[in-house]
């Protein structure tokens, strides 16, 4: 007979990263969340403007950017895994994540230049107010995330992280995944959903 152990497991699982980073992440998500609700309400009030605005966007670049961020997140996640297991290859994964995420930053800047040269800006209409503000606010978060990844990569290179204390690495990775998560809502909301 299989022995069924009903005794409570000794739960040693802990929140990855620092609690302060999680509070920060929730606050950031609250800001984006309210903006998303605002977007939905504004779109329901004026679907024609939002439809016309979406038509002016470049969904292929949006898709490439999405793929770039997801791929970067993959490398960040595997870097955390390698470090936790005390395996080599942490640093190059982080640098690769940064390099791949740069596809996003370049793509986004190309989109801004393109739209701006066509005469679109923050004040064009409600759709473009949301488009420029939300994506630029997110863009700034990506830049900050890249800076954090650079710091992590340098620290790994200096031998500051040996896998015994995961707090710094996990905190940075959590922040990066938050940035990624926000984009995964932003992309379909702005570029795709009719």
């Amino acid at each position, binding site marked *: 007979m299989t022995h069924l152990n009903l005794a409570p497991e000794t739960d040693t699982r802990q929140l990855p990263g620092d609690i302060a980073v999680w509070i920060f992440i929730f606050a950031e998500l*609250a*800001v984006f969340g*309210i903006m998303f609700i605002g977007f939905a309400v504004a779109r329901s009030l004026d679907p024609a403007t939002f439809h016309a605005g979406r038509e002016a966007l470049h969904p292929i670049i949006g898709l490439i950017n999405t793929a770039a961020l997801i791929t970067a997140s993959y490398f960040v996640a595997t870097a955390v895994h390698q470090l936790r297991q005390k395996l080599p290859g942490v640093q190059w994964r982080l640098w690769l994540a940064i390099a791949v995420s740069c596809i996003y930053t370049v793509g986004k800047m190309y989109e801004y230049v393109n739209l701006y040269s066509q005469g679109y800006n923050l004040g064009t209409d409600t759709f473009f107010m*949301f488009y420029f*503000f939300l994506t630029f606010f997110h863009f700034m978060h990506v830049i900050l995330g890249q800076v954090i990844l650079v710091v992590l990569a340098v620290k790994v290179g200096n031998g500051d992280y040996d896998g015994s204390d995961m707090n710094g690495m996990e905190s940075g990775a959590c922040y990066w995944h938050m940035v990624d998560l926000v984009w995964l809502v932003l992309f379909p909301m702005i570029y795709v959903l009719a």
Partner: protein
Amino acid sequence: MKYESQRVAMPYFIFALVLFAGQIVFGLVLGMQYVVGDFLFPEIPFNVARMVHTNLLIVWLLFGFMGATYYLVPEEAQTELYSPLLAWILFWVFAVAGTLTILGYLFVDYATLADITMNKLLPTMGREFLEQPTVTKIGIALVVVGFLFNIMMTALKGRKTVVNIVLITGLIGLAVLWLFSFYNPSNLTTDKYFWWFVVHLWVEGVWELIMAAILAYVLIKLTGVDREVIEKWLYVIIAMALITGIIGTGHHFFWIGPPEYWLWLGSVFSALEPLPFFMMVLFAFTMINRRKRNHPNKAAILWAMGTAVMAFLGAGVWGFLHTLAPINYYTHGTQLTAAHGHMAFYGAYVMIVLTIISYAVPIMRGRPYGNSNTAQVVEMWGFWLMTISMVFITLFLTGAGILQIWLQRIPDSGEALSFMATQDNIALFYWARMIAGCFFMAGLVVYFGSFFIKGQASFDEEVRGATIQDA
């Protein structure tokens, strides 16, 4: 007190409290003028009393922040102040210039004051809260630069702590943003932009950094909780304050002529401005619950908890009440704004200065564990009288504001009451506010009285863990 030079904070605190008393006197004059229009007219017209009331507030809070900084930066940096002499010189320069400016408001009409002070050379006068003559503005800038030099030299030669870094960042922000007060464009919309860059980014930006740093310092001292824990909270609070507060400036841009997108940005970001204040409440109460010692200075602990709660209510909740654009369309510039302004300034900035005074002044007077029990009880009476009075002032002004909106703003243009007719209808609330204001004054007198009670708290068996003087 670990370093002798910390004592230079004392004159700053004393002068701050004197100006505080002046501010409350003029508050009472104003409260009376709301209901008896020609009270003290023509000696002190309403516009002059209002200018004195608000300017005294700003100047005394600056004195309070400077005193707090001179007290805590050397102790955090674990070194003597770079130049106590400079701190004394700047004190007298600021005190004399501030007093002369207030006397100028009271005894010379504003246009003449502008002429005497050669406002024409660089016109900066005439904007609400920034009414100071240009020469006074230059004086404030110079005093702040000298003060920052002194503080930064002190911080640089000693231990670098997060509290010092956050405090000094806030103070540098205060100085830099002040420079916008010298730019006075003729276009009214641009003028308002730059005006808010001083007013909003002070009180809903860099001042929050100063407040959080002072609160963190006092909590380290009073609770004995590990510095690392307190610093982590401090980082999160200031990050939230800046994320929400900077773009939150947009809630002032709704109706001044800039593009429509500010309706969205201002609404969304300022709706989140209560967050850092809410976190300060959690911060203060969590640290006090996790305290490693029972500090005998109970009054200072009360002020620390009080400032967190009242700042959240006044700045956070009462700010949120009218910050969304569709609501602000009706409430803009009504008594609801006055209600918010009173409780926010009292809760966030008056109380944080009184918190550090409650902690530091007894130490500077040779009472390392706080004032005697009797003095603390009297001080706490002052706390409750002033705080409850301020709650009532806020509630009465909120009532006045709601009625004002109902009579003057919501009806269609043909049916709405005029401004003055509305004022007659809400006079009852103004009388009630006046009574609450008198109680506030009584609380202030009781509070001042606590300073004259002799004796000190003792280091008794209640005190657990490490000694009071560490951390």
